[in-house]
């Protein structure tokens, strides 16, 4: 084999591989989308499973909103996820800044503690919190979910924010302070604007983390008007007659916000992930 043939072979193999991976990701999503556009009769026709809707319909999406009040679930999810994203981002900016720019006593044990919180199974924390929240009379409120999502997303986000800070040369801050800026002015006028993409990435992490969570939702929330999207859809599976078309429609709508956020912020999210996750 001449080197050229060899290189062509390698390229072809690579393209094939990439195509296979793409198919592997897209086919399940395709199947979900197709199911969501079929009428119920076609979905449960076991003799003839169609790979494209014979009759294209939006009836599943309609039912989702008219029969199951999906609008309310989306609203609940949005409230909880955006408050989580907001507060996590604020606290991460402060915590990340301290970890990136100061050396202080107890810093390494703090970092170890953050890592350990990531190792603790969620369910172990959820059960005592359930009792605590019940006693505090905040069970079945947005606040209970918000608090849980806040503490479960904080460690990773603080660590990620820290590494975003570390990428900004300290000389930038020094120059600012020579020019007479105070610490807060430096932080707000110089550092944060440069870090804007990183800040948005951390918000996206926390938002997605909260938006996607199911287990705590099923435990802390117990009336339909408070259901978040995953909890609401989960209750639909439990029903005796599962309407898969409706469920798939709900799934598509649940994926949309996170998928769009990810696609837009892909570069920064990936950066944050590699920076924060290798390290903790």
């Amino acid at each position, binding site marked *: 084999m001449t080197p050229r043939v060899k290189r062509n072979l390698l390229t072809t193999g690579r393209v094939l591989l990439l195509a296979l991976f793409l198919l592997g990701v897209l086919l399940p999503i395709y199947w979900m989308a197709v199911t969501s556009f079929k009428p119920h009769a076609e979905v449960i026709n076991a003799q003839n499973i169609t790979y494209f809707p014979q009759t294209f319909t939006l009836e599943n999406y309609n039912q989702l909103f008219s029969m199951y009040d999906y609008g309310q679930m989306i609203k609940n999810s949005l409230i909880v996820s955006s408050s989580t994203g907001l507060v996590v981002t604020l606290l991460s900016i402060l915590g990340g800044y301290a970890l990136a720019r100061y050396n202080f006593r107890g810093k390494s044990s703090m970092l170890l503690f953050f890592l350990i919180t990531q190792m603790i199974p969620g369910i172990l924390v959820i059960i005592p919190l359930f009792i605590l929240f019940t006693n505090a009379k905040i069970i079945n409120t947005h606040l209970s979910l918000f608090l849980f999502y806040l503490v479960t997303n904080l460690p990773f986000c603080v660590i990620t924010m820290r590494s975003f800070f570390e990428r900004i040369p300290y000389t930038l801050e020094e120059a600012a302070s020579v020019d007479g800026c105070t610490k807060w002015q430096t932080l707000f006028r110089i550092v944060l604007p440069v870090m804007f993409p990183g800040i948005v990435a951390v918000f996206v992490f926390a938002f997605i983390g909260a938006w996607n969570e199911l287990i705590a939702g099923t435990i802390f929330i117990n009336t339909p008007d408070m259901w978040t999207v995953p909890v609401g859809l989960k209750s639909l599976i439990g029903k005796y007659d599962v309407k898969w078309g409706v469920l798939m429609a709900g799934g598509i709508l649940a994926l949309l916000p996170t998928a769009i956020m990810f696609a837009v912020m*892909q570069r920064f999210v990936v950066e944050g992930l590699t920076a924060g996750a290798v390290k903790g």
Partner: protein
Amino acid sequence: MDTTLLIFLLVVVVLFVIGFLLLRHYEKQNNNAARRLKLAAQPYAFIGPVLILLLLAFGWPLINSFIMAFQNYKLTAPNAIRFNGLDNFQKLFDDSDIWLIITNSFVYVIVSVLGQFLLGMILALALRRKFRGRGVYQALVFLPWAFSAFVIGLIFRWSFNGEYGVINDLLVKMGLITEKIAWLGTPGLSLLVVILAMIWMGVPFFAIMILAALQSIPADVYEAADMDGCGPIRRYFAITLPYIKPTIIMTLLLRTIWIFNSFDLIVVITGGGPANFSQTLPSYMYTKAFSSYDFGLAAALGVLLIVILGVYAVFFLRVTKYNKAGDF
């Protein structure tokens, strides 16, 4: 939005403003001693809120779990809560399913981690060299990372449905099977479906991590190897792999814990069934706690979990020398 959340958010914002004003106030004072004190206190002021929140939210429940594990704690009988020694642990190991569940947990973790790792590695290697449209391709192929385990679970549960599922239909059409398989109703197969979903969900994460590590390898190392006439396979094992080894080890170890702890896929796809054949320790704990409301028994399971994870964490710290480095 309920008022409690609103009040809480307001309090957070107000605290921020107060902190901000206080710091500005002190900043203006030129007293030397006060300034030095302020400098030393600054990092703690910044990280304090996070630390206090986390200590409360993780510390208190953990201590509570330990106490509950030795109590007769049933939510259905709040007046009969008392210490009962090792009764919960006795009950736990009298359960004939416990060994099945422990085995499931390990099978689930090991197969999922290896699957994610191997596929993630292949994807990262294929993505390594720049090509036109790589950004768009990555945005698509990494999508499952942003997806909720819940929706992924739904897709897999629906696709592997015994009667209407697309997987059975495809297999029949390809002539691989003649009769439809009850994937979710068959011991062994139901866990397999959960594992497949877990692998699908986790490949992007591994690919992202390994790709980043690959891109940090300096190009001149490869040039030198080329000059010495190194073939691609030898090059991979002699240069690439050693270079990215630290990343791989760290990612593998952290991912193992994450997968071990995560069970939303199980809850959505099989509910642990049939007859606990796809149940793992955390999902069993969830089931025990919220179907029978026997929190004491669930807490005993939690202690068992902590013991397993504790052993693992010590192993982890040894391997990565995480604490020796003193820093991430």
